[in-house]
């Protein structure tokens, strides 16, 4: 039995596969690929697959993780090649390795968020100025859905802004938020707060499409999880 941690990417059309659907999609991919995945024991055996950290719908990523076990005579390299042949081109495994860190070691995730201006009448500079005025606030309170209802959190205190740049048609942010089983903050909360703040404070600054990508899943010491 070989335990495997696969790192895969989720791009373009595959961005819209929900977390629940991804599980089913991967289970079926193992059967198509003929990779002997380990099945759980018991009354209702099922292919054992574990995704340590869910990705929001619509987010791209090049660093998603999936753990499984090979129950038979096959190298993890071959398993990866076989799986990639049956997975859609927008959902491909990039690397396989023996898992080192535990799931509970996950502490942060880094994201790149590109926010476009609505159209040519809005300049990237004005969007940048609006963002600076927004983010300079001492605290940014948002409602966060939890298992027990909603809670108010200071999303600014929870987010580290790693980089802010203007691009040809908007703003490019890099930020780090807590991730993992105990605290998990979706960077979308901060962006949603910004979008809600804009009409009241800078009504001329209208935004368009948002592109979000997860760049890294990190442990407490700042090293990569995978």
């Amino acid at each position: 039995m070989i335990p495997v941690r696969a790192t895969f990417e989720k791009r373009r059309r595959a961005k819209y596969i929900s977390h629940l659907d991804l599980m089913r999609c991967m289970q079926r991919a193992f059967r198509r690929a003929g990779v002997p995945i380990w099945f759980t024991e018991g009354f209702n055996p099922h292919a054992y697959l574990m995704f340590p950290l869910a990705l929001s719908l619509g987010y791209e990523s090049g660093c998603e993780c999936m753990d499984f076990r090979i129950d038979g005579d096959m190298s993890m390299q071959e398993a990866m090649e076989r799986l990639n042949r049956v997975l859609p081109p927008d959902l491909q495994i990039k690397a396989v390795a023996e898992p080192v860190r535990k799931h509970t070691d996950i502490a942060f995730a880094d994201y790149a968020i590109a926010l476009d201006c609505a159209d040519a009448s809005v300049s990237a500079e004005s969007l940048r100025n609006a963002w600076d005025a927004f983010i300079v606030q001492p605290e940014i309170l948002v409602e966060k859905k939890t298992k027990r209802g909603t809670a108010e959190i200071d999303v600014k205190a929870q987010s580290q802004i790693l980089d802010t740049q203007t691009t040809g048609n908007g703003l490019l942010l890099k930020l780090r938020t807590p991730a993992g089983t105990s605290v998990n903050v979706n960077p979308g909360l901060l962006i949603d707060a910004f979008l809600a703040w804009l009409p009241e404070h800078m009504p001329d600054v209208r935004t368009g499409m948002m592109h979000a990508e997860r760049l890294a899943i990190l442990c407490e010491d700042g090293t990569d999880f995978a």
Partner: protein
Amino acid sequence: MNLFDQIEPLLLKVQKPARYIGGEPGSIMKDKADIRARFAFCFPDRYDVGMSHLGMKVLYSCINKRPEYWCERVFAPDTDFEALMREHHLPLYALESLEPVRDFDFIGFTLQYELCYTNILNMLDLAGVPIYQRDRGEAIAPIVCAGGSCACNPEPIADFCDMFFLGEGEELDLEVMDLYVKMRDAGATRSEFLKAASQIQGVYVPSLYDVTYNEDGTVNAVTPKDGAPATVRKRIIENFDACPSPEEFVVPFSEIVHDRAVTEVLRGCLRGCRFCQAGFLYRPFREKTPETICEQSRKLINNTGYEELSLCSLSTSDHSRIEEMMDGLLTFTENEHINLSLPSLRVDNFSTGLMNRLRRVRSSGLTFAPEAGTQRMRDVINKNVSEEELMRTCKIAFDAGQTSVKFYFMMGLPTETDDDIRGIIELAQRVVDMFYEGERRPKGKPVQISCSIATFVPKPFTPFEFHPQDTREMIAHKQKVLEEALAGHKRIRASTHFPETSILEAVLAKGDRRLCDVIYGAWKRGCIFDAWSEHFRYDLWLEAFAEAGLNVEFYANRPRPYDEVFPWDHLDYYVDKAFLIRENEKAKQAKSTKHCRLSCAGCGVTKVTGHPCFDYHQNSKA
């Protein structure tokens, strides 16, 4: 023109966006440079319904096997996405290329249910294609076509379609595409192509037929022109066992209604239940050998990765070698953690041997369709199932540990009385009593009998096509009788349906060409997704009928004499009208007809095929 960049900004604003972006495993991508004709296979309902449909998978695979043709999938967008599409001027597109449907050579709809008709209009409108055929001009593309079971009476949507495909499409669709490519390359116009296509068996071009009406509103005559055949005969696949079946499915990301591998085990039905349109439309009865079924199933499981396999047919237990087939399937499904499910079992040939095999399959309860509560009523509809057989089957199931059974019934059947309605509950109660008498029943568990009671809809090409449907008032009365009969029966649950839905279904099933304007009027008033109760607006439909000067009762509630010209009489589904009349007469006397394997009832099929459907000589030896 790939619309990805226009689609993407809308996706996170709608429910289940994965339905609108394609890219699923098994979806066929091709290079447009190699393609000579493109077919947009449109399912006029939501993705989760359409993706469950086996016929679409079959034809998708047939067309895509040809390297020069590309078949793509199109579904009706849900109302939230439709609103955004209209707001952002995003045209209806196909899920593989993400290119507009209006640029395709063929826009083909599958007609599975009459209440999808307004969705067809809505999809054509979203595509930017003129809804009425007469407005499409002489440019040859796109050709709007339709096939599937409702094509047996396509008159209510005849004005919207360039052509209909009658019967089985595996060979027919490709023949039409071949002719299209040849004629288009030679510069033919739409009408030239339609005229030529009407000569292919199975192609019905409605614009080549003039329909005249009598003063009372019935059809006077349907007259072909420009050399179109006087009757159009459906197509069938002669050698069904050798017929290519899909070895791959598009495997969806999001959950759909039937999310599993499906193998068709037989086509047609030998039973001849008089209410059942499918039982007559899909004749003759043809089956695949267990070897073919097992091989196709195994390939499908390997290629799709599905964890569940289902068998598809009108009556799986009528397969002459079902136990062999089950043994073959179970040998690999059990080893590979595959669930096997068998819908469409009959109660009269449900053997202990079959039950023992079924016990090895994880089962979510048994479903049977006695269809009627009394023996007299079952004889009228030719559902040759006796109460003893039903009881025996339920006993086998209870002894095997089942505690719930679901029954399907109908109300509003010809000659039905209130006693027949009460008979439904009485029958269910006798099953309950039998459960508690059983010694091997699971102890400490109550039994649950669920009865789903649909309103009967008389359909073309059945012996009951002559019958009026019960009026709304009659149905309401019978539902009340049922409710009263149910009082005090704690272990029985009964559910009924909206009668209005069934009434509209009857009208559209047996309607004529004048209904095109009614359907258009209903759609203009906002009717779509009529099959979904939350969208169904009967009041708007009635307005559309009134506007067209027509009424529901003429179509649904009028007994139709044997000598009347029916709107579908020029379409030939192998089954003679004379046979339907004979069967209807036997129904009136509550006389049943033996199933086809026992003796030939002379339905007319053999006159076309030229040979008996079964080897009766061998039967008698056995």
